[in-house]
């Protein structure tokens, strides 16, 4: 599904990714862990098409297409979804309107019929239950005045609505209490299917108790320094990152 080959990227003059290679197949969940500043979020944002980074070499192939040649919205329409670490507030645009517009844009791009507001509300009803959100949230402005936990739930709600093929969760666990974490992880697990995949970016092993990964990669200083199965996460939890960094 996704093949990242020797990816180098800069933000301004600073090289942040220094040769990342990673292959994600359908049905797999990959966890990317690592210390702060290792480039985890940069990788997530580059896959989503954030304009703030420059890819200097390497390639990202998604379902046989050159992902880097696509605009951010084209990537979303092709099934790539980034759950933001810091979801953006958009005062004046209701969740309901925003979600429906996004949903219909993606449908339209894939040659499917758009839903009218009534049909869309029916769809939302089931999705809201998945993340245990009050339907009243639909009529509030996107993320405006939401608590940290509400914002993260709102990200997972969008993911549930858009049903991406490749979901990237950027530190979705940060700032969540254990109940919110369980809800968020439950939402992600409910959306797991053999034909989609997820990349879970996290600093802590805690989330991986709920979203069990097939592979764990340790990112440090812009490179993947170690890869392994889910047991690697437990080992990192017990021993910290230093031993991996030293070995690398």
């Amino acid at each position: 599904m996704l093949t990242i080959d020797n990816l180098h990227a800069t933000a301004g003059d600073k090289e942040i990714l220094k040769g990342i290679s990673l292959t994600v197949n359908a049905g797999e969940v990959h966890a990317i862990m690592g210390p702060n500043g290792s480039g985890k979020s940069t990788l997530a944002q580059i896959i989503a098409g954030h304009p703030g980074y420059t890819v200097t070499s390497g390639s990202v192939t998604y379902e046989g297409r050159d992902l880097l040649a696509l605009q951010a919205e084209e990537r979303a329409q092709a099934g790539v979804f980034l759950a933001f670490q810091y979801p953006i507030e958009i005062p004046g645009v209701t969740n309901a309107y925003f979600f429906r517009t996004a949903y219909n844009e993606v449908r339209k791009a894939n040659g499917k019929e758009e839903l009218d507001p009534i049909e869309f509300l029916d769809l939302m009803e089931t999705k809201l239950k998945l993340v245990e959100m009050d339907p009243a949230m639909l009529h509030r402005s996107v993320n405006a005045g939401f608590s940290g936990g509400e914002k993260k739930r709102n990200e997972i709600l969008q993911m549930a609505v858009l049903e991406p093929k490749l979901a990237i969760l950027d530190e979705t666990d940060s700032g969540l209490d254990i109940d919110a974490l369980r809800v968020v992880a439950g939402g992600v697990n409910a959306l797991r299917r053999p034909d989609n995949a997820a990349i879970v970016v996290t600093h802590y092993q805690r989330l991986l108790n709920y979203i069990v990964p097939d592979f764990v990669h340790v990112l440090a200083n812009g490179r993947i320094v170690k890869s392994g199965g889910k047991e690697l996460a437990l080992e990192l939890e017990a021993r910290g990152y230093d031993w991996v960094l030293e070995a690398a």
Partner: protein
Amino acid sequence: MTSATKATSDGYEQAFSALRSSGGPSWLPALRREAMDRFNALGFPTTRNEDWHFTSVTPIAERVFKIAPTRSGPATLSPADVATAAIGDPDWHRLVFVNGRFEASLSAFAGLPAEVRVTTLADALKETPEFVAEHLGKLAKSEGQTFTAFNTAFAQDGVVIHVPGGEVVEAPVHIVHIADVHAAGAGIHPRLLVVAEPLSQLTIVESFVCTGSPGAAYLTNAVAEIEVGNGARVNHYKIQRESTDAYHVGTTQVRQGRDSMYHSFAYASGAAISRTNIYTQLAGENAETRLNGLYLIDGTQHADHQTFVEHLAPACASRELYKGILDGSSHGVFNGKVYVDPIAQKTDGKQTNHALLLSDQARVDTKPQLEIFADDVKCTHGATVGRLDEAALFYMKSRGLGADGARALLTYAFAAEVLETIEVDQLREGLEALAFARFTHGEQR
């Protein structure tokens, strides 16, 4: 006086002499003459005048706009034309003026409470001249105000509203000013006089719109005087959607008694040059004024808003939120003055002004002016000039919205915050739909 202004001055003097109005109360010619003299003495403001520093009225000053001729023959506009041109509702009380002239056939305001008087200025001068004499020109004075003097000298018609104490007018009174194809070259000077007696309630919607395209400049120079009695509440919506060939100057003067409420919303999307003045005096304790506005301009349009809130009594509140969205090489001006008199302790004033620039050529000048002479007051002001939030644009694109769609939605959202303050549903929904269509489909005004 330059030769050009001499020529326009002579032109207006001739037009003034030709007016020699038929009938009318005896005091009226003197009031007009005084205003005409004031107009001549003041001349049109230049950018050396502090209040007009960012707005040049040269295109208005260098020609003589004809006093709109009286229509002869049947009305050329249908009620459907009015409904298309102005956002409104058939249930509202409606007075329609075409090129400044009252059109009875397009108007409907018979369903008002019996005690409430709504008439044209021309009728009021015949029927209740004492009432008009008592109030006309008392708030909107000609001193120092060229355009008010200009209006007083030339106003041919307008609306007089008198709401007696305790009366509540449920449906809005909608005053529609339509410029049609015959407006080219005309100077239209509508006048509005409102007296809301204690504990009364009234909503006024003034729409300045066009139908067809006059294809040439015309001038609207409107003046409104509004007295809000003790405990009374007046909601006042001014919707300026003139032709982009037009010039529009609108001055509203308000005086509020104790415990009264005046809520103004000014929308401006039309005219080549527009200037909106809203001046309110909080003259009784515990009165509140709310001034909100939105302007949407493009191309080479120029929109200038000046507000002046005078806190002249203790414990009054003023709230002001103005937003502007500027595209093309348009130019916006916002000048918000607040004066707090020494007697006006416990004043609570807040003024906010935000402008959104959609192009590199658009420009905005913002000038808040606070003059505070009381010590126990709370007065704040805040102004921002910005562009669309890049982080929000990326967020929307990452959800599948195209770049244009994301920009449109964000722009609309910026406007929506202030449109939400409109309490008349049909008007709010109508303006929201207009703004939405404009940003998402590139439709005009």
